[in-house]
């Protein structure tokens, strides 16, 4: 039992005039989530800070052997608190808590420890979780909020997916990014009006979004297709992965990053899987089945909207991913990204993104199993897979990371042209 008694709660009064500082992870998604929360009357500040200072703050306040995502998120928040921009008695912090067997469930406690070290323990820290771990009277994850958040995440997935597929080929440079911006603004406006959340509306806007991206004029050129999988934070956060997406763009690649919705379905489905493997309550099973069904509807809509445009590669459904994973790893493997990470590698390879960067914080425990641990078996099933695992932490250097990615790209290039760098065709 975590120290409930001494925890500073986020009260209803605080909701009125406290600024809630949020660390960043996936820039597009978090922007949308921020807007959803604002539409519920919260004052949210999404941090966009970058740079070495954040790492340094993290190193100072978090045990250096703790995973890099914790170090960065906490570093980013401590950096914000020290910036002088905020009235420290009018701010709250927020942290997600998954409640799994991975140490990520403890980030929030590490953040509290960091605050305490600085004498700032009066700052409330809000846990965002769907496991019933911690609650706050002034911050309730209500059903409408959850529904909207899921919608927002799915919008994020769709925008990221389409942008990644148009940007490398766009005739007018910057068009895809501009379109993302435009949609962010538009969706924000709609959210403020309480719109774009219902299933019907969501489906409609998904179609509109897909249509608008299909309207971008594209050049016909062959690019290397690279997928990014990994620990969720390092996978999405440019701060953590040293701008991996951009680096790959610069190297002339098209990049595919699987979305967040799959991870959400995965977390719900885990409970069902647990019940199937070990037994459990029927009531819990019903609730989770319903929730999974609900999430899956969004996924289905997203896939259908994308599929209307044959130039786009639509992501595979969660069920397909699960089926793929089943060939190499058990569905009971659920900590961290669990079997989903392995499945994402396989799905990417299967859908033409044969080159995969598997990102992980240095020493990430689940990734020993589902990332590095599974590469050999994935190759057995899909010999064309060209996977490079890359570790990220405060002391890993970009030179080494990029050198290894370049090696992976050289292999990719060779396979792509059917000729190797020596001009020799493979026997």
């Amino acid at each position, binding site marked *: 039992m975590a120290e*409930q008694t001494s925890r500073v709660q986020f009260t209803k009064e605080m909701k009125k005039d406290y600024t809630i500082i949020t660390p960043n992870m996936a820039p597009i998604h978090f922007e949308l989530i921020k807007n959803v929360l604002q539409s519920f009357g919260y004052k949210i500040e999404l941090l966009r800070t970058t740079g070495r200072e954040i790492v340094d703050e993290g190193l100072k306040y978090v045990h250096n052997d703790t995973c890099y995502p914790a170090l960065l998120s906490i570093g980013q928040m401590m950096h914000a608190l020290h910036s002088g921009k905020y009235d420290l008695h009018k701010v709250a912090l927020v942290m997600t808590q998954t409640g799994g067997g991975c140490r990520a469930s403890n980030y929030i406690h590490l953040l509290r420890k960091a605050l305490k070290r600085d004498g700032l323990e009066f700052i409330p820290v809000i846990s965002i979780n769907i496991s019933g771990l911690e609650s706050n009277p002034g911050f309730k994850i209500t059903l409408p909020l959850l529904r909207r958040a899921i919608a927002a995440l799915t919008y994020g997935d769709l925008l990221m997916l389409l942008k990644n597929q148009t940007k490398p080929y766009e005739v007018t440079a910057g068009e895809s990014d501009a379109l993302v911006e435009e949609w962010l603004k538009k969706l924000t406006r709609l959210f403020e009006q309480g719109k774009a959340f219902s299933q019907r509306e969501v489906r409609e806007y998904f179609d509109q979004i897909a249509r608008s991206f299909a309207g971008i004029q594209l050049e016909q050129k062959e690019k290397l297709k690279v997928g990014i999988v990994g620990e969720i934070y390092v996978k999405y956060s440019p701060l953590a992965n040293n701008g991996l997406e951009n680096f790959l763009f610069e190297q002339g690649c098209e990049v595919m990053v699987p979305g967040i919705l799959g991870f959400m379905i995965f977390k719900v489905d885990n409970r069902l899987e647990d019940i199937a493997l070990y037994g459990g309550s029927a009531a819990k099973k019903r609730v989770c089945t319903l929730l999974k069904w609900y999430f899956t509807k969004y996924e289905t809509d997203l896939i259908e909207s994308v599929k209307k445009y044959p130039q786009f590669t639509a992501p595979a459904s969660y069920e397909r991913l699960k089926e793929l994973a089943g060939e190499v790893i058990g569905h009971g493997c659920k900590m961290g990204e669990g079997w989903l990470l392995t499945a994402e590698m396989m799905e990417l390879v299967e859908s033409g993104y044969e080159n995969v960067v598997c990102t992980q914080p240095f020493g990430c425990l689940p990734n020993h199993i589902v990332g590095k641990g599974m590469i050999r078996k994935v190759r057995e099933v899909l010999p064309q897979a060209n996977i490079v695992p890359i570790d990220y932490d405060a002391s890993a250097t970009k030179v080494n990371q990029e050198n290894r990615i370049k090696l992976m790209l050289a292999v990719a290039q060779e396979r792509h042209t059917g000729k190797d760098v*020596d001009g020799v065709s493979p026997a």
Partner: protein
Amino acid sequence: MRIGLDVGSTTLKCVVYDDKGELAFKAYERHYSQIAEKAAQMLAAAKEQCAGMEQAALCVSGSAGMGLAEDLKIPFVQEVYATRTAVRHYVPKADVVIELGGEDAKILFLSGAMEVRMNGSCAGGTGAFIDQMSTLLNITPEELNRLSGESERTYSIASRCGVFAKSDIQALLNQGAQKKDISASILTAVVNQTVAGLAQGREISGNVVYLGGPLTFLPQLREAFDRILKVEGACPENSLYFVAMGAALSQEVAQFELSEIMEKIRHYSSKKQYRGSEALFSSQEEYREFERRHQQDSVPTNAPLLPGGKAFVGIDAGSTTVKAVAMNEEEEIIFSRYLPNSGNPVPLVRDFLAELYSKFPEIHVVSSASTGYGEEIVKNAFGLDLGVVETIAHFTAAKKFEPEVDFIIDIGGQDIKCFKIKNETIDNIFLNEACSSGCGSFLQTFAGALGYEMGEFARLGLFAGNPVDLGSRCTVFMNSSVKQAQKDGASIENISAGLSMSVVKNALYKVIRLTDAKTLGNHIVVQGGTFLNDAVLRAFEKEIGHPVTRPSVAGLMGAYGAALYAKERAAWEKSKMIDAQGLASFSHQVKAVTCNGCENHCRLTVNTFTNGARYIAGNRCEKPLQKGKTQVHYNLYDYKKQLLDAYRPCEGPRGRIGIPMGLNMFELYPFWYRFFTALGFGVFHSPESDRKLYFKGQHTIPSDTVCYPAKLMHGHIEELLSEKPDAIFYPCMSYNFDENLGDNHYNCPVVAYYPEVLDANVAALAETKFIYDYVGIHRPKDFPKKMCGILAKYFSGITEKEVKAAAKAAYEEYSAHMERIRQKGKEYLALAKEKDLPVIILSGRPYHLDSEVNHGIDKLICECGAVVVSEDSVSDLVERFPTGVLNQWTYHARLYAAAKYVAQSGDPRLNLVQLVSFGCGVDAITGDEVRSILEREGRIYTQIKIDEITNLGAVRIRLRSLFAALNLGAEKV
């Protein structure tokens, strides 16, 4: 004409092919990070030699060449590819290429499915590693090679990380092991590292080609590869130049006007800016003022011997240096020596004493003491009166300069020691466990690599205008940070200053884990040879924001402290230390033997001295020292092992099931043993872990950063397979038993899912029935039905009724097993109380019972005179209580409970030592929490980080310091 330029991490290579495709020029040189300059020079030399070369096709390769090529728009090929191009050209029949470079290690599999492997972020097992190790032995890599050829035996040395290897080697040196044997051991370690890190399950066979500097220059290294891989590899002509040749031969080359591109390279400086920080000194005046202030803290070092000739001797045989001091009754130093320890401290001490006696014939040594890594051997060899643990020696000396001292930080060659002082006693100790990046050898290694002597190198940085901000990080990683800074145009001065700062930052933020300089103390004494560098001292003062005391004899403090200690404790008139006469006939012999006292078969080094004294090192227990008469030990770890041994291998009509004895099986074996025997299976487990077992499985480990206990599982599986059982049982388990101590009852991800990794990576498992399904023993009601379903997949005819009965028996067996442990724990606690013995709750996880994992630390504690109990034997003695972290792992909930038990007890005899496996991510969280539970009640927290290391030297110091601080056990004074 085609030119290939290979800019490696430490060297520059260039080749030129003429139009006939003949090699017309080649050059190889260390670039000392002046990449642009040296490259331009090299090209100029090439141009001169190859007459008429005005235009040429050029291509760059190598990790440090990436930026240069990119900015100057010269084609670049990744070095692995360049290697392959050249190999195809020159050794078309090659199957596998092994290339070791300065900081890289690569394996290319050419035949079959082509694969390339490169070392990850760890630089263990590369040229840099060999360089570092030869520096440690005070020989050149070539000498290391020669010596290795004469070796008679090898020791096991941790190869994963240079830092660990260093501590292993240091221990061997101090024990008197021979350099030739250590040399061979180093090369073997390199091979093991390459195989473990890069082969990842793929067999290395066929035509093997060796490339790169280390394999070219060190034939013994090639020999070691041949021997371990059972192949006959070849090192082709020009093996140093393959990357450069490959670059030249690659299709990527582009034509350049040679003089033009040379000019561009010469004037190239990276556009990228490195991150800088404030200069150490802004002016000469500032520096002079700083010097003046520190000159105040001095003690005479050339004092005369006072009438009567009374003197006291202190010797500190440290990891890289031997310090020796003789002082007079006024505690003034009359004679001292600071000598680099290139291995064996004995001859150095002998010379010191000889000099002392000849300089002061009338000397009357009253008392003497030794300290440091070599404390024992020096004490034995020369008959010193006392031995003192390092921490106490340093504290004694620091008090002399600053009576109010409340914090001491000592940065030596390889260790950092920090202690807080409260009420005149050592209150808290920080030692660097697994990291030497904040130490002197760190600076020294970099200085050496850049072609400087350390003091000179550090001085370069004093007035550097914009020191590189290198942050705090591991030595191995620092190599690439420095590389990056060099790439970004940092000057040698700014790198030097940056490294001095990073030494300090590592010490403060990695070892002490400081957040606020104020908490460090008001009266800080800094010492150790590293602080004699003004740059480091200044960086330290700047970082913590106020002045500190640096004694003039900062480098001698251990020895001076030992002398003071000797004086303090002298209840006698004359020292037993060897006199001038005895010294004249002193000799020392070393013999290596294998102890057959128990199944450990420790390799011992036996040192025999003229006076008949013997000193044995390399032992894990005191058996070889005491010849049979062992004292009674109360060690719950032994008891737990006995309990497990009672489950004897057996046969059964349904077949034989093998269980790997590792990770959670150390606790669940009784459960599964009973379960399967009840069902009519025979059950046996894999043998106890040792190095040999580890090596058997190391080639299938996919992640080299996973914890050692997990890595050992690969060996256990190999052992089981060789027994050809009907099935191997090792289930996946997200959840563990709920002991109602925490919020949840998970296993950590590695314990939970390691069977998946084994299945995916140990190809041989496909030939046997490997049962690794997901099992939930935490739900006893559902378990029989679920388990019955699982078993039905592998065996026919097992009914649910049978499984139910077997499950009942298994749960009962498990409860009884745990109860026995708890009972024994209570018994030992009562006994300790009765006999007034100190108790250490040695807390880890079930698998820390493995002696290959705990390295006999339990025994070591017993030898210090304490009773050892385990965390699981006391965790039931406390009520569930709130923790500052999410308490969600069964094993870790026990840690918190054990800490709480100690904290609540109010009994100073009771203390906790936490064992932490290197790479255990969970312990980053638990360690801090256990510490805070203890410290809230004013108790000392001691953490011991363990990996593949076999060196217990640092652990011993740590434990002795703990006992000394507590005034308990053998250190009672």
